[in-house]
């Protein structure tokens, strides 16, 4: 009987192809939306994690000032400037035994870099020290990174990210290493390119190759002024297990040096805990996207119910004939239930296909990662919706009295 119901239901679907396709479209869009949006959510979560991991999981970031600065004012949350003295204190192995390297950096704000008539403003322009490359995980591909000598000598040298090099060459397919040895203009001064970074690609939020790095001393001379302060510190702990100790060491050293008791005057960001926070917020984001998609799936389900009701009304006479020649209630119920479920199942299958195809594209800078559970969930819910929204129309069909149904014109 089930097989026959399926056959009869397929005939019903086939008999009104346009309507069936339009109904399926609603379910298809819903299922595809769930799959794609969840994939976008997972993709952005993965990208975030990648970005944080790229920083190195045993690194800590120290930023001057804290959350709520200005809002409270006064001495309570005084904005602390991190000075060269702080950097030296943190780098001192007797004061901070858990710290293996300290990388200070100064931000050079939106200075134009030009070469041979082409110019660009890199997203990140930093003055930093030799340990930047290993600690921040920025391997040099060709040439060399800035050395301690460059820092001491205030050498007018720069290391370029691949995007900056390509922009300066004016050709996206150009080999960045051909910039090696070239003289570029940064702001008002001339600098020699001594190296290029390996391409790291996007971390989901920004292009990590759009970067230019020079010695910190050079940057202070020519571009940011000799303030004796730095804009950020990356601290590398001896190993992953030592990150929490290192965090405590940084906090106590900085608190002592700046005579502040509140830790809100500066921030020590622990990548591991940041990772956890990011993960949590990403999960919320994914759930939100999934919910929006689920609503569209529900709307598709209501569409199925609507069409099934129309179908039942339209085929009242047919139902009467079937009942007159001996169809049981269960036969009619089965026929319309199967029809509704088949509609949503076919729509769901199409939705899975479209969702998988759609997830191949980069959406708003995020490479979607298809979550297998979203496919199962979306398809399963689509079928359940067919069952749920099919019950009422099918029951209505099955409850028709044959004599009334036969008389219906």
């Amino acid at each position, binding site marked *: 009987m089930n097989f026959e119901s399926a056959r009869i239901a397929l005939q019903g679907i086939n008999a009104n192809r346009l309507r069936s396709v339009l109904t399926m479209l609603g379910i298809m869009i819903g299922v595809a939306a769930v799959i794609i949006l969840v994939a976008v959510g997972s993709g952005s979560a993965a990208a975030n994690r990648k970005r944080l991991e790229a920083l190195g999981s045993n690194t800590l970031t120290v930023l001057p000032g804290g959350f709520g600065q200005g809002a409270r004012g006064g001495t309570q949350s005084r904005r602390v400037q991190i000075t060269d003295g702080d950097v030296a204190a943190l780098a001192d192995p007797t004061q901070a035994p858990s710290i293996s390297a300290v990388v200070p950096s100064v931000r050079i704000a939106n200075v134009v870099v030009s070469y041979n008539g082409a110019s660009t403003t890199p997203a990140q322009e930093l003055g930093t020290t030799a340990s930047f490359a290993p600690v921040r995980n920025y391997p040099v591909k060709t040439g060399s990174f800035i050395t301690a000598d460059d820092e001491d000598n205030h050498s007018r040298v720069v290391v370029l990210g691949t995007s900056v090099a390509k922009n300066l060459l004016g050709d996206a397919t150009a080999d960045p290493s051909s910039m090696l040895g070239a003289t570029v203009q940064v702001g008002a001064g001339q600098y020699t390119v001594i190296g290029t970074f390996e391409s790291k690609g996007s971390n989901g939020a920004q292009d990590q190759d759009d970067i230019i790095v020079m010695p910190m001393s050079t940057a202070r001379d020519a571009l940011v002024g000799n303030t004796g302060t730095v804009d950020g510190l990356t601290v590398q702990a001896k190993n992953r297990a030592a990150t929490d100790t290192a965090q405590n060491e940084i906090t106590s050293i900085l608190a002592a040096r700046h005579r502040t008791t509140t830790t809100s005057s500066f921030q020590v960001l622990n990548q591991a805990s940041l990772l956890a926070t990011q993960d949590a917020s990403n999960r919320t984001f994914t759930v939100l996207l999934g919910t929006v998609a689920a609503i569209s799936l529900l709307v598709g389900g209501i569409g199925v119910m609507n069409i099934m009701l129309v179908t039942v009304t339209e085929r009242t006479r047919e139902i009467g004939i079937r009942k007159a*020649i001996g*169809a*049981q209630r269960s036969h009619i119920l089965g026929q319309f239930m199967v029809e509704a479920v088949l509609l949503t199942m076919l729509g769901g299958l199409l939705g899975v296909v479209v969702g998988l195809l759609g997830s191949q594209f980069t959406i708003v800078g995020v490479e979607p990662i298809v979550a297998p559970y979203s496919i199962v969930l979306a398809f399963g819910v689509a079928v359940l919706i067919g069952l749920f929204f099919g019950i009422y129309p099918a029951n209505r069909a099955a409850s028709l009295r044959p*004599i009334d149904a036969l008389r219906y014109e």
Partner: protein
Amino acid sequence: MVDGVTKTYGSGETLVRALQGVTFTIERGDMVAIMGASGSGKSTLMNIIGCLDVATTGTYELDGTDVRDLDDFQLAQVRNRKIGFVFQSFNLIPRTNALMNVELPLIYAGMKRAERRQRAEEALVAVGLADRLTHLPSELSGGQQQRVAIARAIASNPALILADEPTGALDSHSSTEVLDLFQGVNDTGRTVVLITHEDEVARRARRVIRLRDGSIIDDHRQAPTLKAVPA
């Protein structure tokens, strides 16, 4: 079979007495024409005989079973196994070919695929449509559609064939063909009940019952009952 049946619709001032105490018995193997003008109650009677409706009062026994004792499930079974319907407007399932239409009651009876296909083909051959098995109703003439309907009615080998104005929508040539088929069906021992208002149809019957205003006004036999073959 039918004993003191009344059927009323509505109540109070709008009460309609469609049947007012109709009593008769149809023997197995008979071919009966139930005649009457429109509004005489013949359609109501047919619905009751066909187990599509139940009498308000009185009893209707089919094969010794009072249908009032049956629930919906059993009524559907009775319609499926004991009664074959033929309607004025053919009532074939649209967009479904002749063979599938004839198979339908057999599907509902739970018959296996191969067997019901064979039965359906035999039934269609019997009504002379061997070359129209896969045609859709819309591709068949009225006469052919009614023959498919007759094939559907006889496919499940029911004891009673119930036809409601079977020739009402047909030209005289097709009518003759269809009536010949009914006569053939009756000759094989099945009971045939024709609801009609056409004298020509009634002339073919062995017995004619005339209704007016919900009562029998005439009941006479034109030919002897065929000696019943157990169905």
